[in-house]
């Protein structure tokens, strides 16, 4: 009993130093990391153009979504899709799965009708930047996974020069993006003497505009062009059919250069953890290399695949530095994902209130993606 008193005071002293130790970091993260979210909510309620002026309530959000109804349909569709996915993936009972599938289809139909409405009534440029972000994710992540995995297979095991290759492969990822983007801005310039056009010339092809080209790559290859009455469903969805612009494609190629080596190192780490006995046992059972790859290697590296996929998608919603350098204003925003579009609304447009509302929309998307990642992190083990 006597010991209890000093022990309690020691415990309190430990708690006090604990709080004091986290105070500096907590103060900075609180003021510059968390407070901004609340502050954004406040700013977004005003017609704030550099200086604060009239309180406008939800008008900024109305401008984004084109009114309350399109927003509600959007929210409902997304909720339906989320619920449908949860039901269809977890439950084995066929009735529930069918219900999940129905919800999923309902949500998708809602989006197909609602997104063109938002583009017509709300912020068409935001919808374009959303489309750019989706193309950017689709264009980068799968290819980076594929080539990252192939290089990781080549990096697996012990051989001479392994560390040198690892250092070279991480180099594009580690050096400042502004400097390397400055190089790609030249490699993919529209001038006939640019590197990309010189490569085309080797094959006898005519030079392209690359970073200056606003046309979609499918449009250039197959002739799909946006068509239909302005503001119609057809016009909106046919804009997707044109594909990512060639300028965005050039930025996607820059991304390959930066990230494939990084993906390879992450995969190589996962491959090194695969127990060799599994391969030997499978070989004894007469499994062909392709079967071994599908049945052993791919499932065992799937946590890395999942991690890189989600991180890659979130990365496209956060990306800024390389696109700021590589974008050509003459293309009219066909290279700008949401983060870059929002930045220019604030930086050049001076529309603080509107850009704040936009940035909260971006935060909602990134937060949902992160929540998906966290939930699956709980189920699988990523870090050894």
């Amino acid at each position, binding site marked *: 009993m006597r010991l209890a008193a000093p022990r309690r005071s020691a415990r309190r002293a430990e708690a006090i130093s604990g709080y004091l130790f986290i105070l500096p970091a907590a103060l900075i993260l609180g003021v510059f990391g968390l407070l901004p979210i609340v502050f954004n909510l406040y700013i977004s309620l005003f017609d704030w153009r550099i200086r604060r002026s009239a309180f406008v309530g939800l008008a900024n959000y109305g401008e984004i979504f084109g009114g309350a109804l399109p927003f509600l349909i959007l929210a409902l569709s997304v909720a339906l899709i989320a619920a449908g996915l949860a039901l269809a993936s977890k439950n084995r009972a066929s009735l529930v799965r069918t219900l999940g599938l129905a919800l999923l289809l309902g949500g998708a139909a809602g989006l197909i009708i609602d997104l063109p409405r938002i583009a017509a009534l709300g912020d068409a440029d935001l919808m374009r930047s959303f489309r750019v972000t989706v193309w950017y994710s689709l264009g980068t992540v799968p290819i980076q996974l594929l080539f990252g995995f192939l290089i990781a297979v080549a990096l697996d095991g012990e051989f001479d020069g392994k560390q040198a290759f690892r250092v070279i492969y991480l180099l594009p990822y580690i050096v*400042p993006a502004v400097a390397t983007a400055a190089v790609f801005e030249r490699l993919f310039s529209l001038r006939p003497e640019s590197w990309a056009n010189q490569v085309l010339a080797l094959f006898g092809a005519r030079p392209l505009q690359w970073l200056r080209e606003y046309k979609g790559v499918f449009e250039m290859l197959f002739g799909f062009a946006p068509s239909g009455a302005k503001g119609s469903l057809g016009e909106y969805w046919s804009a997707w059919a044109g594909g990512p612009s060639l300028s965005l494609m050039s930025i996607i190629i820059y991304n390959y250069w930066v990230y494939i080596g990084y993906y390879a190192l992450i995969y190589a780490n996962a491959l090194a953890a695969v127990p060799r006995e599994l391969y030997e046992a499978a070989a004894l059972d007469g499994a062909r290399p392709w079967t071994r790859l599908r049945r052993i290697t791919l499932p065992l590296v799937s946590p890395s695949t999942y991690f890189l996929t989600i991180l890659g998608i979130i990365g496209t919603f956060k990306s800024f530095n390389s696109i700021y350098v590589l974008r050509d204003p003459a293309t009219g925003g066909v290279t700008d994902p949401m983060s870059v579009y929002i930045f220019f609304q604030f930086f050049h447009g001076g529309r603080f209130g509107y850009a704040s509302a936009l940035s909260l929309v971006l935060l909602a998307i990134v937060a949902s993606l992160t929540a998906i990642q966290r939930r699956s992190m709980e189920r699988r083990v990523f870090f050894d």
Partner: protein
Amino acid sequence: MTRRRPARLSAGLVLRYSVLGVGAFACLLPFAYMAANALKTYAETVTRVSPIPFSPEFWPRSPQWSNFAEVWLGDAFGRYFLNSLVISASTLAGTLATSALAAYAFAKLRFPGREAIFSVFLATLMIPETVTLIPNFLVVSYLGWVDRLAGLTVPFMASAFYVFFLRQFFRQVPDSLLESARLEGASDLRVLFSIVAPLSRAPLFTLACLDVAASWNSLQWPLVVVQTPRWRPISVGLARLISEAGPQIQLRMAGALISLLPIVLVYILAQGQIVDSLSSSGIKE
């Protein structure tokens, strides 16, 4: 079996080295382009071109070292370079202090709400910079920190990722070591600096390298809070050179080379640790 093995091995090796060689060539090509064009005359950047580094046309006829002097003095890259050095060093000092203190508390001290506070810390990691930009700009303007060193550094003097990163290593320090030091009357601050930190030299060094690379590369925030050359970092200087300097490719490439050199040096110095910690933890910032 035994006779076939060496032959198959060497075929595998050839395939391995050719795949890795092509990849390494692609990784290094833009650096070669940067170096070659930084040393060309303006006329050569237009007329003396080749897409293949093995061709002499890829390289300048005689290296124009004066391009570097022109960028360093004429475009004030010398000043930007020093600014970036000061900004990186100050940010690093702050980050190291706040992260080590917080990581020690989360790893070794018991206090109510510890796990909850830690998860709030981690939540800040997902927030895109674009989201914090406008409120932080208003706060920094209110504090009078626009165009000041404080405005460029203080918001980055703490990072949840580094706290998370260091906590993993601090946890591995045995409690018995800390207990015996405490019994001799050492305070927690003393335990951190004389026992935990020296044992975690490698992760602290990795953190320092990553933080310097991150500050050196930051662009979005400095674009907003720096309006005059006084504290303009080299990232903004280079971005301006690209958008405003016209067709002088050799100057842009010289500027890019200058801005990337310190990070390449740091990387080569610390390559083993950086490669290992990045490929196992999988996160940069």
